[in-house]
């Protein structure tokens, strides 16, 4: 599957998603602060997170909110690096956008995943979303106590961290691209 084929179904879905997000941040008191589309590697993670941190500080966002935003940004970006799939040409289609609406920072990320992974990820994220504050913290402690690094290097704490730091506003969506792949999108909010 070549996601870069102009006008392909996959590219259309991907581009519509990205444009739809950006369109929500035009107008009064709204702004797209950061936008990255395409391949993502660790060097870019470092660069993007550094830019985000500086931007937040320049906007006078509270230290507490900057930390939360930085936390979510790193988890979202590293999630893409670890789990984002590549097409047949070794090209990894991802997006990362931060939109500001008044004092609210909206962090969006997306990556391709195999359709075979959609069900289990969907269940896992729904389970996390159903947890109350107390249950969430308890589950976090359990994973921390028992957690090991997986073969891929993840620890299973990433989504829990995002849910915690975003004050339980983590939202997600799967869009089928074709027989093999779907677009996995994540969105969370932090009050500045």
């Amino acid at each position: 599957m070549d996601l870069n084929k102009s006008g392909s179904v996959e590219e259309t879905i991907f581009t519509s998603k990205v444009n739809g997000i950006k369109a929500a941040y035009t107008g009064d008191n709204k702004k797209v602060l950061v936008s990255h589309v395409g391949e993502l590697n660790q060097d870019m993670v470092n660069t993007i997170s550094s830019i985000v941190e500086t931007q937040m500080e320049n906007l006078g966002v509270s230290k507490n909110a900057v930390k939360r935003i930085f936390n979510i940004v790193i988890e979202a970006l590293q999630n893409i690096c670890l789990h984002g799939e590549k097409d047949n040409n070794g090209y990894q289609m991802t997006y990362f956008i931060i939109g500001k609406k008044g004092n609210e920072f909206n962090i969006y990320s997306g990556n391709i995943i195999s359709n075979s992974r959609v069900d289990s990820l969907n269940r896992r994220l729904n389970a996390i979303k159903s947890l109350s504050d107390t249950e969430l913290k308890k589950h976090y402690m359990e994973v921390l106590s028992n957690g090991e690094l997986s073969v891929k290097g993840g620890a299973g704490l990433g989504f829990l961290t995002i849910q915690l730091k975003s004050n339980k506003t983590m939202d997600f969506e799967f869009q089928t691209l074709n027989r093999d792949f779907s677009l996995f999108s994540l969105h969370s909010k932090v009050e500045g």
Partner: protein
Amino acid sequence: MNRLEILETGNTPYILFDSSANVFRIEGKSFPEDCKEFYSPVIAWLDKFKAVNPKTLAVSFNLFYLSSSSIISVKQLLLKLADFQSMGTDVTVIWNYDDDDDDIKKTGEDYLKITKLKFQFQVNP
């Protein structure tokens, strides 16, 4: 074998383990792409250091950001220190944090609960 020094990078902490100078510290931020790759040599060094059978071991942490995977890796590092404690070494974890950094303070408290090591909490000046 007496000394391990890893310079800090854009996403990994500064680490100095010097048994001659009796300095053991980890400082900065931690969000490497591959936590196993970064922390394995550090944990392996500690494993070899067991042969020295030190009487005391005080390790100072001053981390201001830990990615979720790093939190697991640091836990594994602390559990390695707990091995020393079982061997009879008097182990102290000095957990430094900024005054307004509840997250890092709380992470230290979580580690204390999990590892049962002796923790000294210190606010950065």
